């Protein structure tokens, strides 16, 4: 953890008490999950499908500029809904309790080049278990950026504002490569690993299907509107990628968010795990529409505490969680989207340059490997 530990004032008993209070919040939501929640996700899925159908329909005539604009806007929103409020949350198992095989973490596939199975492993398992632990949570800079003073600087990091921008534009491909741990696995010895090759093939298949749909089939169906439709789907993917990248950057990158050493999670208690999630995440404040379009990842702190609670309940949970932050005198990092995006980018720029030697020494080899 950097500089002064913002949780130093808490005793071990207080941390466990905090854990119990958070468990109680979780139990309350689970006990009250029901028909309304099920109706909510069904409504969102149905709305997303209708919006996508209509937008794709309008794009058949995208040779006319107003149709292009409307269709592109609609498709962008539909793709964002698919990835954020629907896909991300279903793949977290948030809706498994409904026992509907069509809305289930084991069957859902999303409009994204990373197959949901692989993403579940790298995101649900690695990122959510080891949130912000240097050397364990690859989401910290996605392996291409330095996001904390403690990480060793390398000249490669000078380019990180550019890497981050490119990653933002092609975010879904970045995620797919990330889920494959491409950097690590392209080393000579690992390239031939059959398990890696099978996963790489699965990504290849998914990319082929996605590209064929967006850039061949739908443009072809549009006939004379071939090129405008192609441009429209490219734009929609770009918009979706920039949006999701921005939202996700706001989750763990803004100033004030803590990172942790590998050693610090040894023998971590439930209370300590909760505390790490609280200190390692940041929220976005805003309207209901804003929360919806971020897939409720604007409630990143609540999501990290309770990744499997239905997303539509995070808003009510947030009130109680925030009260706990105040009770235990902890900083609840939140702000409007522009502020948080700026803060995250500011950090990316700042840490592209070397800083004075780390305030706390972290001798972990993994971390050095990561930085190298």
């Amino acid at each position, binding site marked *: 953890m950097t500089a002064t530990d913002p949780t130093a004032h808490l005793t071990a008993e207080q941390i466990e008490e905090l854990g119990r209070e958070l468990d109680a919040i979780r139990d309350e939501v689970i006990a009250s999950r029901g028909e309304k*929640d099920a109706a909510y996700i069904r409504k969102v899925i149905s709305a997303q499908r209708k919006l996508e159908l209509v937008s794709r329909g309008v794009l058949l005539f995208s040779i006319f500029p107003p149709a292009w604009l409307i269709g592109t806007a609609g498709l962008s929103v539909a793709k964002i809904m698919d990835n954020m409020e629907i896909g991300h949350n279903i793949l977290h198992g948030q809706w498994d309790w409904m026992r509907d095989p069509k809305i289930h973490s084991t069957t859902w596939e999303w409009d994204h080049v990373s197959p949901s199975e692989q993403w579940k492993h790298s995101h649900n398992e690695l990122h*959510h*278990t080891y949130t912000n632990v240097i050397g364990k949570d690859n989401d910290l800079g996605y392996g291409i950026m330095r996001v904390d003073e403690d990480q060793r600087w390398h000249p490669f990091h000078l380019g990180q504002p550019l890497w981050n921008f490119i990653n933002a534009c092609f975010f879904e491909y970045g995620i797919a490569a990330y889920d494959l741990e491409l950097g690590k696995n392209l080393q000579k010895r690992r390239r031939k690993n059959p398990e890696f090759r099978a996963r790489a093939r699965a990504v290849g298949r998914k990319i082929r299907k996605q590209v064929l749909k967006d850039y061949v*089939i739908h443009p072809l*169906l549009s006939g004379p509107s071939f090129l405008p439709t192609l441009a429209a789907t490219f734009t929609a993917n770009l918009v979706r990628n920039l949006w999701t990248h921005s939202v996700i950057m706001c989750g763990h990158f803004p100033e004030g968010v803590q990172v942790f050493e590998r050693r610090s999670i040894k023998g971590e208690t439930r209370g300590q795990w909760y505390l790490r999630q609280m200190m390692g995440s940041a929220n976005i404040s805003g309207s209901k529409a804003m929360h919806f379009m971020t897939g409720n990842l604007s409630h990143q702190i609540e999501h990290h505490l309770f990744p499997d609670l239905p997303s539509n309940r995070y808003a009510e949970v947030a009130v109680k969680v925030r009260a706990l932050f105040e009770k235990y005198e902890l900083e609840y990092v939140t702000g409007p989207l522009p502020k948080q995006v700026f803060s995250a980018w500011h950090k990316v720029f700042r840490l592209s340059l070397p800083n004075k030697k780390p305030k706390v020494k972290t001798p972990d080899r993994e971390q050095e490997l990561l930085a190298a």
Partner: protein
Amino acid sequence: MTSTAPRSRAWKLLEMVTTPLLPSDYLDLVSPLRAGADLRGRIEAVHPETGDAATVVIRPGRGWRGHTAGQYVRIGVDVDGVRLWRAYSLTSPTDRRDGRVTITVKAIPDGKVSNHLVRRAKPGTLIQLDQPTGDFVLPQAKPAKVLYLTAGSGITPVMGMLRDTEFDDVVMVHCAPQPQDVIFRSELHDLVADKKLRLTEVHTDTDGMLDIARLDELVPDWAERETWACGPAGLLDAAEEHWTEHGVQERLHTERFRPGIVVTGDGGEVTFSTTGRTVDADGATPLLDIGEEAGVLMPSGCRMGICFGCVTPLKAGAVRDLRTGEITEAEPGVLIQTCVSAAAGPCDIER
């Protein structure tokens, strides 16, 4: 079958258009009951029968293959947002003109689905359906004499038979606590008035449970009758014994509603049915650990209940969520997180 190839090619193209979803995901939005869709039905009406029983009128989807009188159907109903599957006898005749079918449901104490269907189900609701099944049915050749021996909601498959096929000589002995608890009572009395049925009602609150030996007095020629019996296990056990004693067991056809009693406790014998391994588990160790120790290849992830990387079908028995204490009982389609679930009695995990 010349049309198969182009059709399947057209379908493949359509799948490319809708990937990663399927064309049916979009078609379901507008036409959930169409041919080719997963089999569903729409509840069109709910008619009360007694204080705690109701008949649910269902319009099945186009894929419905029809039923034989006496069969049952499994239905999947969303209760408080959770899909639950139960089996109910079909009570409608097989040739209903409007294509609707009915089930008649008795609300049992603490029965989630039965109470929902009897008291809260709304017309317009979609439910999931399986094809009808069951061999508690009438034979092709008409028997000369028939006896229906029923108790409580055991009357439902028999009502399907009564409404479907007329016999020259039918006797029914039906048990229910009180007259007002007799499901379909007025319809049965109409049949009696039309001389299509001879009926004996046994009101167990006043008459006591039916002693099977009383059949000699109620239906003197019972042993000559082709008999269909449905009701609680006690009645059916007694009937089977009685018929066997008199050497006419081949005339008796019974239908048992599976009681579905799951023994819950603290720990129990865990069967990993795919690998065929069985081990004893206590009530505090996650099933993931139990399986791994037994050498079963278990999928795993975060090991703390957040990543859903370990979900596995629970085929039988019950498990307890170690975080909340919540009990989950096996039902078709139920998956459990093995890393935060422990055995709550004997259970069967599909691994």
